[in-house]
């Protein structure tokens, strides 16, 4: 049960002078149950990559396998694939269209051909999963706040019960509070259901706290693919491609340069604090 990308290439613009090589020989294995951060600068190909994962874009070269089957094979059921690999687009609130929140969330499961009862059960569960209160269920989705709309849209994909959930910049345009709420909710969801989550972002800070693996994209290729600690060690290279490591990495690096023999691989503030206290010879309390 996994997603495998085998030498995936994607060129758009065809054979004109405007052709863009959006993905270059991408090779990835995404096993079940991982929490992955997909990071890249604007135009690095990360959005194009995730659209390959549920078959919205057909690669111009290479093959994508889901659970061992080629997703672009003649008789492969794309609709089923899309229910298994849920993709939440950037600004997903722009896709809402129903008269009330509940029916909008029902759209996905209904398309899967489920019974009315099953559809509604799933929609209810999904709305609960994203932490939306009951009082909003029968309001027009257009009357909600930005953060709430986004939750509804995410619920719309969750209601299809995907095995892999991909979120393309789920925090774009939200204030810090809304951002933390959404990310915490996703982390909680991941913990409860054990599904694979791929979080697309251009901010290391956002994902560092949550994910167990980071894939860094640059100009259509995979630059790094490792656990966060290892990826952040390359912070100079990250800066070159327009990204940055979390602030903690910089602090630890500078402390070391100034003569404090700390290890530099802390990724969160708590870890950094422990490490500094350890070096100073004090126990963490």
């Amino acid at each position, binding site marked *: 049960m996994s997603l495998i990308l085998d030498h995936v290439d994607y060129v758009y613009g065809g054979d004109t002078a405007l052709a863009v090589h959006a993905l270059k020989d991408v090779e990835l294995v995404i096993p079940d149950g991982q929490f992955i951060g997909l990071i890249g600068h604007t135009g690095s190909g990360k959005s194009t990559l995730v659209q390959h994962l549920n078959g919205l874009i057909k690669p111009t070269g290479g093959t994508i396998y889901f659970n061992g089957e080629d997703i672009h094979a003649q008789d492969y059921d794309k609709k089923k694939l899309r229910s298994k690999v849920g993709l939440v687009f950037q600004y*997903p609130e*722009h*896709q*809402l*269209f129903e008269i009330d929140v509940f029916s909008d969330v029902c759209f996905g499961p209904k398309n899967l051909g489920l019974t009315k009862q099953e559809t509604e059960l799933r929609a209810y569960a999904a709305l609960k999963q994203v932490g939306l209160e009951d009082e909003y269920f029968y309001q027009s989705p257009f009357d909600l706040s930005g953060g709430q709309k986004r939750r509804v849209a995410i619920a*719309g*994909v969750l209601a*299809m019960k995907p095995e892999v959930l991909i979120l393309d910049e789920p925090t774009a345009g939200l204030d810090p509070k809304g951002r933390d709420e959404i990310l915490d909710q996703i982390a909680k969801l991941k913990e409860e259901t054990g599904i694979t989550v791929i979080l697309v972002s251009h901010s290391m800070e956002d994902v560092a706290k949550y994910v167990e693996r980071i894939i860094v994209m640059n100009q259509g290729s995979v630059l790094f693919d490792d656990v966060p600690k290892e990826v952040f060690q390359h912070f100079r290279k990250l800066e070159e491609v327009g990204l940055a490591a979390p602030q903690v990495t910089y602090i630890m690096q500078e402390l070391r340069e100034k003569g404090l023999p700390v290890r530099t691989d802390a990724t969160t503030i708590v870890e950094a604090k422990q490490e500094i206290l350890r070096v100073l010879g004090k126990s963490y309390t």
Partner: protein
Amino acid sequence: MLRDITLGQYYQTDSVIHKLDPRVKLIATICFIISLFVVKSWVGYLAAAIFLAVMIKLSKVPFKYMVKGMKAIVFILLITVVFNLFLTPGEVLVSVWKLKITKEGLRIAVMMAVRLSFLIVGSSVMTLTTTPNSLTDAMEKLMKPLKILKVPVHEVAMMMSIALRFIPILLEETDKIMKAQIARGADFESGNLIKKAKAMVPLLVPLFISAFRRANDLAMAMEARCYRGGEHRTKMKPLKYAGRDRIAYGVLAAYFAVCIVIRIYL
């Protein structure tokens, strides 16, 4: 799939046609369209074809791009041809069951097809070589005299340029919403006509909302910059005729004269 509509899509390159004053191109396009209805003989269409071919060659835009615009009207073209082919009375050539293909019908059908395709390709040459902004500039300038009749020329031109500007944006938006709904299991392809029409709702509602939102944002941005329409507004790049524009007018006049001559004598 939606990117096939070339209308309002500028092709960036460096050619004589690109450099012409947009007024010349606008008038030339109108004249070309009129000429298609002036001529009625094959010689006339040959003249139009030659004129068009030369223009395409001069514009340096790959022919592929012009044909792309044709895809959008294939359906209209088909209906026109079929109706003319079967419903024109006259000398019967072939008759199948109740349908009759007549000599006149065949002639009119082919002519209509040629006319429509030339019309689209001709206007594509203009839109591919002229940015929407300079096009509306030209329109505004050409319609200036109408101001005496209290026609809000500047406002109309502004609306046109905004509308043109938004075509590619809305197309992109449509593409995005479509993908988002497909990701939620929507099906835009299979089913009968009614089912297909129903399937459009999840696409159209968000699209309308986004169009209104964009319109609102734009109005706000214009207001914030104290935009207030026509009077005393100056241009950053005022339109000025150059030598090549006069030559172009000459060529155009010659072509038009040839068309009229063909109409009268052939």
